[in-house]
């Protein structure tokens, strides 16, 4: 078990290293990183100073080393636009994204589980067909477009919710809904499929043969097994959420990290993008590692293996 765990951690660290390397190299992709790091208003003096700082005359692996060390101590550079340290920008903006992401995922899970179970237990009937159709529909809905539609209908036409920004509890509804619905589609289908598999299994038949009520079979026997692949999926789902989050925040002008990266791209603010990409990658790797560990923990087959 411990061995399994440490292998996973090792792989995660390796992945992180690869990401670091890629990000580092990307800044040197078009020649000197100085152009990217300084922007058009920089003076000769700025160039010279940064050159010395970054030690661009040093061999490349030394540069990388200094870069990595710098990151570890929290130095992610400064925004080209505002000259703020990227690290503190991230720290102050992160909570907004965390709130949005967590709320959406929670809603998605709360919707998907009962829907998936319901659909599976009424296979072939109207409930099932409707749920499946809706799930496919949600999954096909490009979230950025759906967000705009929501704005057009609920914010502009009906004026029930604000069109953007973060001014009070109402503001989270539309962006949260957009993000949640997208995740719900895929999650519902997954739960439905896993439930169907569980319901057709031999152990469910045995449970039924002992006279267990259908409800018990569903929630205690089938769901427990069906949730395993769902937890596994959470890792991938998280990556999806990060992707979609950036888009949703851009659409709704939600003051989170997604919007930050959007603006940074528009203004070619390299240090900010670099910092955010690193952060997102780290989180993604971290969440996947967490999912691995949780899976090891909750599946009894691996717990004492």
């Amino acid at each position, binding site marked *: 078990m411990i061995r399994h765990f440490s292998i996973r951690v090792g*792989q*995660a660290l*390796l992945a992180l290293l690869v990401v670091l390397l*890629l990000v580092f190299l*990307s*800044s040197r*992709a*078009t020649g000197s990183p100085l152009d*990217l790091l300084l922007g058009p208003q920089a003076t000769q003096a700025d160039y010279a100073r940064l050159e010395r700082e970054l030690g661009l005359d040093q061999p490349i692996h030394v540069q990388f080393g200094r870069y990595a060390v710098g990151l570890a101590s929290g130095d992610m550079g400064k925004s080209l636009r505002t000259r703020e340290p990227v690290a503190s920008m991230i720290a102050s903006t992160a909570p907004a994204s965390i709130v949005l992401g967590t709320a959406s995922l929670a809603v998605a899970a709360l919707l998907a589980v009962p829907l998936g179970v319901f659909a599976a237990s009424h296979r*072939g009937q109207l409930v099932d*067909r409707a749920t499946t159709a809706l799930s*496919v*529909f949600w*999954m*096909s*809905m*490009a*979230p*950025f*477009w759906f967000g*705009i*539609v929501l*704005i*057009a209908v609920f914010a*502009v036409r009906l004026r029930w919710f604000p*069109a953007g920004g973060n001014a009070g509890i109402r503001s989270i509804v539309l962006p949260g809904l957009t993000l949640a619905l997208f995740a719900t589609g895929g999650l519902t289908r*997954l739960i439905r*499929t896993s439930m169907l598999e569980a319901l057709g299994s031999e152990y469910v038949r045995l449970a039924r043969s002992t006279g267990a009520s259908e409800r018990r079979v569903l929630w205690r026997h089938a769901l427990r097994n069906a949730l395993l*692949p769902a937890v*596994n*999926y959470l*890792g*991938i789902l*998280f*990556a*999806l959420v*990060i*992707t*979609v989050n*950036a*888009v949703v925040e*851009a659409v709704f002008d939600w003051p989170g990290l997604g919007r930050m*990266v*959007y603006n*940074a*791209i528009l203004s*070619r*603010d*390299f240090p900010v*993008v*670099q910092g*955010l*990409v690193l952060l*997102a*990658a780290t989180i*993604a*790797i971290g*969440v*996947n590692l967490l*999912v691995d560990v949780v899976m090891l923990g909750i599946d009894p087959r691996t717990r004492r293996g």
Partner: protein
Amino acid sequence: MVERATPTAMPGETVDLSRLQERLRSNRGRTTLAVVVAILGLVLLLGVFGGALAPHDPFAPSLSDRLTPPFWQSGGSAEFPLGTDSLGRDILSRIMLGARSTLVVATAALLSGALIGTILGMIGGFFGGTIDAFISRAADITIGFPMILVALLFAVTVGPRPENVVISVAAILWARFARVIRGEVVSLRQRGYVESARVSHMPTWWILLRHILPNILSTVLVLASLQMGWVIIVEASLSFLGAGIPLPEPAWGAMVADGRDYITEAWWISTMPGVFIVVTVLALNLLGDWLRDALDPTLRVS
């Protein structure tokens, strides 16, 4: 004396087959499939010929016509069926031309990812050992990685380009293919004829080509059609963020971005291209589902 009884059916017995017959009726309607294929055919057509068929020049601004609503609203006209954008360009024409860049980029991305993933999956599954372990681990780690990050990084360093989208998507997509294909190859390998081919010293590439490939093709096809929809969404999202297909190409995602600021006065600028995206992706997803049910029902794609 021998006892003989009457024939085995009880007199007056009727057998109720209705519920069984209901189970046999297939769920997926033929009509849905026809509609899906028709839609995709149309999109494909637009992709190939869109530019030539467009009624107006997708690029030429015409400020006097700006912000014209679609033809069914007051103020709209049949000249600009879906309305015009902030520069007076015909939305329909731009959508028609936009189909091409969207499809080309998405297809290129999907094909690259599928090709790399399938090859690596085949190699890993067939040879096993350290190669397999290495490829599998790499795939596992990559699978949980947000595609968008790579593209964003590219966008900010070398600027938004369609190649960015292709590379970023392929860089993550391969892992999904590799994982599934590897699994298939491993189970294929355990079947007798592959082992006997190996034992009889057939060249490896021959075995791969002749025995393995035909059997995994259907899986590749199903997986590709299931992923294509997502690829288009990613590509459109990237264009929306300004990190994908750059102007002046009328990529659908970028068009939606254009209309964002005019959502209150001119809702159609964002909505129309979006409808095309949704319908295309929906059709692709449905096609993928149908293909999976027909070819490879046990496929689990997470």
